[in-house]
């Protein structure tokens, strides 16, 4: 049990550390913009900021409806999905949260996701493949994982990450174009060797910062997945349930048809199975790692 609590606190502080790096990166890019753009520095910062926030607010308030309709989710039926509904209600009691709305997605792949900006406005969706192929204990583990995302405000955190990524991407792009075409507005006396070095550093930073912030976002997503595994195990007091479900997911060859890149982070398992990209570029930690950690709890 101690291991469980340890994993929860370690993943929590690691994700706060990542958020700190986010803010530092954003701060650095903002400073750069102010330095290079002199006159229109605040305009470019404001522009990037407003755009990013509008994107994020849209996703924040309407994101759950969009995701649910994109997945062709239908509300769970009282008669057909009684076990699912009872399990969600039971786990809400264990978590001290209001009951989320429950949806079912017609798909052979084993997967589930949670969405919603806060516990009062949350929804959970489960595939028919999951309902058919997982036994009761495994399904409980999966639902507990999804409820943990709601409980830990992961959707809100992910939205914040999206704002940061968008902001840095837009501002970085503006910086890059501005510096490349010499429209920096810096006065002549700053040119010369020192000025050139700073320019090069600035351009490199403008190219690398959007990449770095994207890597931070993926790292944050992976930490929150580990945290949801551990918090879910604390809810069911039975880590083996989720471990067993993840093993089944690992052996299942079906690919979730309605997943898109935008929604991949919300699912319990990476819906894109054939992604051979490195671990740093994945929204989810490797299944073997997750199963190993669950067995240690």
């Amino acid at each position, binding site marked *: 049990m101690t291991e469980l609590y340890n994993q929860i606190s370690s993943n929590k502080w690691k994700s706060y550390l990542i958020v700190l790096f986010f803010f530092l990166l954003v701060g650095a890019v903002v400073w750069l913009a102010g330095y290079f753009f002199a006159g229109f520095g605040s305009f470019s910062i404001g522009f990037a900021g407003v755009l990013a926030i509008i994107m994020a607010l849209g996703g924040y308030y309407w994101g759950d409806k969009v995701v649910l309709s994109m997945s062709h989710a239908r509300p769970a039926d009282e008669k057909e999905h009684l076990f699912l509904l*009872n399990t969600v209600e*039971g786990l809400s*009691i*264990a978590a*001290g949260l209001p009951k989320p709305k429950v949806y079912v997605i017609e798909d052979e792949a084993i997967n589930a996701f949670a969405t919603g900006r806060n516990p009062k406005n949350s929804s959970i969706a489960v595939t028919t493949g999951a309902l058919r192929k997982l036994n009761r204990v495994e399904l409980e583990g999966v639902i507990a994982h999804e409820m943990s995302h709601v409980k830990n405000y992961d959707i809100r955190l992910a939205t914040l990450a999206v704002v940061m990524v968008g902001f840095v991407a837009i501002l970085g792009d503006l910086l890059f174009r501005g510096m490349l075409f010499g429209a920096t507005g810096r006065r002549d006396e700053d040119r010369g060797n020192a000025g050139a070095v700073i320019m090069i550093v600035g351009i490199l930073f403008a190219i690398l910062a959007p990449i770095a912030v994207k890597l931070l976002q993926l790292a944050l997503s992976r930490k929150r997945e580990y945290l949801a595994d551990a918090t879910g195990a604390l809810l069911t007091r039975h880590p083996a349930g989720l471990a067993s479900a993840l093993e089944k997911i690992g052996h299942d060859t079906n690919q979730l048809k309605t997943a898109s890149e935008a929604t991949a982070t919300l699912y319990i398992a990476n819906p894109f199975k054939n992604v051979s990209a490195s671990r740093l570029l994945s929204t989810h930690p490797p299944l073997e790692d997750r199963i190993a950690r669950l067995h240690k709890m």
Partner: protein
Amino acid sequence: MDLIIIGIIVIVVLFVIAFILIYNGLITMKTRVDNAWSQIDVQLKRRADLIPNLVETVKGYAKHEKNVFENVTKARSALLGAKTVAEKGAAANQLTSTLKTLFAVAENYPALRASENFKQLQEELSGTESKIAYARQFYNDSTMEFNQAIQQIPTNVVAGMLAYKQREYFQATESEKKAVKVSF
């Protein structure tokens, strides 16, 4: 001289803010524990409410098993009338054992087992048993959080002022820990 006065005012204000935050935090935790305790009763009552329906459904297919029905109904009344924690524990255990007998008897009636109504009720009862367990778990988790807070520094100072005492954990009673008997 002025700087010292301003410094003192700032420190006092910070202390007041800290006190308010800690106080409110303790109130939140305490009310959570109280709510969690009453939630257990909500689930127990829900289980009790499901039983008359279950008995009627089974009677429809297995009219002659009078003993079984009477035992279940009696156990349910006993639970609803129980007052002390010990009485409640014993009555709950008795109800569980009579229900198990009921379901064991239902195995002999294939028509009953196949009936959708019966399957629904079985699932509902099983779900309610889980919810009772989850409610007790949440009560214990909230109690742990509260007990930790009133003992840790600096929240224990405020807790002392409010005269908050540690709350008891929900333990399974001795009768609940024993294996449930099924009797025909």
